[in-house]
């Protein structure tokens, strides 16, 4: 977080908080009174210099739309829901942060890894491409075969949900990242 850096009034969107509050899961943003319980109990904040849930909520309240939606720290929320469970105001902090990520995604801006797992989903039904070696290993271990996903049916259900651009992009290109190793 930059210190003492002023924000020009022209870069403030006074209606942003209401925009967020209207979104599914975003309503609570107006209830936050900035006590900081979320940040002090956040496992990620203990190891990250830049991730502070309290700041994120405050930025929304102040109308710093561009700055918060363009930030990379937004994507550091681990969705552990500790903040949500401990907020004395009952704010579903993790849901508000998710809402902000969703708003960014609707503008087509998401970290690459989400494009990869979305690509896998629309092609296989799972977020990973399960390699043939694993399918074979299942047999060796005596595990039942994986059911075949009705991809056409799945994709029909995913139309018109506000992420059309990204869906189009991932359907066209391949891509693979190993998320774990």
């Amino acid at each position, binding site marked *: 977080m930059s210190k003492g850096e002023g924000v020009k009034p022209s870069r403030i969107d006074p209606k942003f908080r209401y925009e967020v509050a209207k979104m599914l899961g975003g309503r609570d943003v107006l209830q936050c009174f900035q006590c900081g319980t979320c940040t002090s109990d956040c496992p990620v904040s203990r190891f990250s210099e830049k991730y502070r849930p309290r700041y994120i909520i405050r930025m929304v309240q102040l109308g710093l739309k561009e700055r918060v939606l363009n930030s990379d720290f937004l994507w550091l929320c681990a969705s552990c829901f500790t903040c949500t469970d401990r907020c004395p105001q009952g704010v*579903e902090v993790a849901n508000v942060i998710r809402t902000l990520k969703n708003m960014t995604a609707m503008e087509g801006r998401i970290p690459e890894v989400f494009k990869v797992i979305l690509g896998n989903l629309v092609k296989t*039904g799972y977020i990973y491409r399960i390699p043939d070696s*694993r399918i074979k290993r299942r047999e060796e271990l005596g595990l*039942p075969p994986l059911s075949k996903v009705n991809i056409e049916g799945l994709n029909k259900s995913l139309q018109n949900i506000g992420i059309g651009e990204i869906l189009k992009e991932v359907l066209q290109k391949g891509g693979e990242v190993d998320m774990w190793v």
Partner: protein
Amino acid sequence: MGVSQRYLIYLGCVIPYRVSSYEVSARRVLNKLDVELVEMPEFNCCGLPLEPLSHKLTLILSARNLAIAEQTGLNILTLCPGCAGTLKKTSRELKESRALMEEVNKHLGESGLEFKGNLEVKHVSQVLIEDVGLDKIKKSIVRPLRSLRVAEHSGCHLSRPKKHIGFEDPENPQALKMLIGVTGAKAIEYVGETECCGSTIAAIDDKVSLSLVREKLLHVREAGADALITICPACHIMYDVNQSRAEKMFGEKYNVPVLHYTQLLGLAMGMQPEELGFEELRVKPIKLLEKIQSSR
């Protein structure tokens, strides 16, 4: 007990992708406990990993699974707490808002499906405690693991957010401790028991997620545990598969074996490590197995 002991098993993505040790051991111990597992006719990702992208996408994905499952008339058992939590949350959210339910059903209707909201979803630990019962599990134990002291890690999504999950107290988790207790092993207390494994941000910030892994493993080792016991495939990957990556990043050695609870239970039921997917574990629990052998 009057509770159905027949469930649809919902695997999710992580388990078929790379955690068969959990699946193999879970199927074996559940079979031993007369819990019958029926395969899902079809399923897709529960939607949890894609929630940062679009909440609506998550709702549709999990409602699709629920709609498919509802046609069988059986309740769902999952091995992954993330899947259980997401399916539960979706069910609840849709039942609370008629408008949202109608909207999601419009999407599902495109391929002839409909979510009605009339089935229950339980994580395997919830099934073991509420439906099978500790007494029945206790009766299945032929080799109590009295020589073992282990640390439990329930993971976040088994109980958080509390309001939506309603199983377990996230601030003082007891379910896994009780389940460990019936195997004869001792579940020890340690610092940072309820801390997150960092799995969900592993692909976003390696350093932060591995720092969480490091901290957990140091605390578990400090407490003198013979192993860390998990009931989540994602947590297991972080502590087992990624343990060597954390060791490399921080220039340390942890040597903490990480077992799925179902593997621990299987051992206590007298099953052999080979039957429980032990060969798939990255951190070999050699000392732990020796300890069990020598205490017989």
